[in-house]
């Protein structure tokens, strides 16, 4: 409980919702000064509701929400506004006042009843306009501005107050890439200067890149906030979002990067209980793996090096494969595993992977397994084994392997084999292999 003492914003067993219905229950979350905490989760999970409960737009039904130790219920709207700045999902401005006055309105809680805006207010407004890169809009009427400009003006409003806590509810949703980065960089630097930020993110990459900690809001609760690397995992994405994704590290920013591969909901339910073995590597198999999984087939991959592009995709898709260490050649154990998988397969596909001494055994097993075989592309330029791969390739063609060029054609060929096996009538033509 020690960090809770210092928390600028704290949810203590909070249940928030609308009417009498809890949307998110038993939330424990502390946002300290100087950090950005991100909320991620599917639509309707209650991320915004959590933020909205702070300003009374959603109800706090049980537990407590405290701003620097003070329960929000004990603060007047004015006191709360002085401490907590809010940037909502959407800002509307259906009236014609200059942007500067629009931002100036946010100084309201600083003014006494009969006060008028003074130089200190002007200064705060000007600073907020400059920080949000909206100074050039200051004299334009707000009803003539774009959604993105309005969004930045809403941020300027929040900053003009001078709060210690900033709530961002999808605040960058209407911004182009440049302004999105600009606003988030600004928020980052505000946090560095001691602001506590709680932000709802839909873009997981942005969440990973800008948030110090992330909490997943899902299934009526909120998980513990932790560093993005520990929160944004393939398992979490599959469980919470129903999406199979490759989770890696962005080589440029060093942040966790999520590449969605497919949605669970998009996988075709099929009675074809067929198994396919895909020989790939170096990313040559990834598109086909995805298509075959989507088609509802049971897919295996042959041996792949850990960290290989195809290995990452196979992991994300839940496609089993014989794992070999990075840059290491296939060992006997891997070969045995691939051979067993080939034995169980109904059809085998060889994708346009280059063959060297390290992986040519995959091809050998595929060719000698005696199963229907689909070869993609040509062996020309891919044989780095001094002729071994080419001789297996020729052998496969002699045994009646189908030759295709495109991923679509490969998928069609596999499905044709599977259907023929299922119906045992052969009413489908085999693919002709033309490009």
């Amino acid at each position, binding site marked *: 409980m020690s960090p809770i003492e210092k928390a600028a914003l704290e949810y203590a067993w909070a249940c928030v919702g609308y009417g009498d219905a809890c949307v998110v229950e038993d939330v424990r979350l502390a946002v300290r000064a100087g950090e950005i905490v991100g909320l991620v989760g599917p639509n309707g999970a209650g991320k915004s509701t959590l933020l909205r409960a702070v300003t009374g737009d959603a109800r706090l039904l049980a537990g407590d929400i405290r701003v620097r130790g003070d329960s929000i219920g004990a603060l007047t*709207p004015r006191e*709360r506004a002085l401490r907590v700045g809010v940037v909502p999902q959407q*800002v509307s401005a259906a009236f014609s006042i200059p942007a500067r006055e629009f931002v100036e309105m946010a100084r309201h809680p600083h003014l006494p009843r009969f006060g008028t805006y003074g130089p200190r207010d002007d200064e705060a407004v000007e600073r907020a306009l400059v920080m949000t890169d909206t100074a050039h809009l200051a004299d334009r009427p707000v009803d003539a501005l774009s959604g993105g400009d309005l969004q930045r003006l809403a941020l300027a409003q929040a900053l003009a107050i001078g709060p210690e806590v900033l709530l961002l509810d999808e605040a960058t949703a209407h911004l182009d890439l440049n302004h999105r980065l600009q606003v988030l960089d600004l928020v980052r630097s505000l946090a560095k200067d001691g602001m506590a930020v709680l932000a709802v993110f839909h873009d997981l990459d942005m969440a990973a890149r800008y948030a110090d900690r992330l909490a997943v809001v899902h299934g009526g609760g909120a998980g513990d906030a932790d560093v993005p690397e520990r929160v944004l995992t393939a398992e979490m994405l599959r469980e919470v979002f129903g999406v199979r994704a490759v989770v890696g590290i962005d080589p440029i920013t060093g942040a966790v990067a999520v590449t969605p591969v497919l949605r669970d909901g998009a996988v075709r339910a099929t009675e074809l209980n067929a198994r396919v073995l895909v020989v790939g590597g170096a990313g040559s198999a990834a598109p086909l793996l995805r298509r075959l999984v989507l088609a509802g087939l049971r897919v295996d991959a042959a041996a792949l090096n850990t960290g290989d592009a195809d290995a990452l995709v196979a992991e994300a898709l839940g496609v089993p494969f014989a794992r070999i260490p990075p840059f290491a050649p296939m060992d006997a154990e891997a070969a045995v595993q691939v051979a067993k998988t080939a034995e169980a397969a109904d059809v085998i596909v060889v994708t346009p992977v280059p063959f060297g001494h390290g992986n040519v055994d995959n091809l050998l097993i595929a060719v000698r397994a005696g199963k229907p075989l689909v070869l993609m592309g040509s062996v020309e330029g891919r044989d780095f084994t001094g002729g071994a791969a080419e001789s297996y390739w020729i052998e496969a063609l002699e045994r009646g392997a189908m030759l295709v060029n495109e991923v679509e054609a490969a998928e069609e060929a596999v499905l044709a084999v599977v259907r023929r096996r299922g119906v045992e009538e052969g009413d489908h033509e085999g693919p002709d292999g033309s490009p």
Partner: protein
Amino acid sequence: MSLAALACSLALVIVAGVALGAVRVAPGDVLASVWRAMTGRADSLYDALIVDVRLPRVLLAAIVGASLAGAGAIYQALFRNPLADPYILGVSSGAGLGAMLALVATGGATALRYGMVPVAAFAGAVLTMALVTRLASWRGRLDTASLLLAGVAISYTLAALTSFLMVFAREQMATVVFWMMGGLGSASWPYLAMVGPMFVVGAALAVISARELNLMLLGDERAGHLGLDVDRFKLFVLAVASLLTAAAVAVAGLIGFIGLMVPHAIRLVIGPDHRALLPASFLGGGIALVAADLVARTVIAPVEVPVGIVTALLGGPFFVWLLVRGEGPR
């Protein structure tokens, strides 16, 4: 500078309102008569006409017009709807019913009426407001859509009740009907003394709420984010608008379009900032009703048209023109 121009226009139209009528008086004589009355030396019939008949009537018209326009400006800000006015919420009907009850209950006792009618009108307006807001917040938060719906429903019910009451007010039928159509014919100094303070208090409270009304333009939630206690402010400012509406309805009955038209037109010209819009609406409402009353008195003199008919006749087409014209100068 717009405010100064409006104030000058109001002064001019007031002098014109006093000078013109069945008997014409030169503007210089108007000022002279007023001066003589103020120094206690009024003697002629002209002086009596000007000081005891025309002047209170014109000033009353200015106050009623200002009250209606101010109330309209408040409602339009609160509901972010340029078509909102004291009638939509049922406040006018509530004030009307209250005033009507007072008229019927006091019979011909005029002196009583001076005290009873405005109090009853304000009570009617506030009770209606309470009923409407209670109804609107039945299922939780006081939101704008339910407020408007509840207002319209209550408004029709109260209007029906008022008409029903007329059955019992047979002897006063002429007065009551004339009052219902909106008239300033019975204006006098006691009337002015009665609604003047209501107007001054209402107008002062409205003007100091201008900054909050500006926040309301951003929407209930955003206004809350920026520190406004939205629900409380709504109730407060609705009470202020009720006071203004009651002041107008008590002495002049139901006069339409001023509350709708004046703030709308003024917003088109000077923009939506209530720090300017509210004072301008008060002045504009005064100008509009003094002018309308002048037309009502003179157009087919010596017969007097109820001013409510004039505002509706001028206001309807004006409003259509606003709609057709689309965007304002800004």
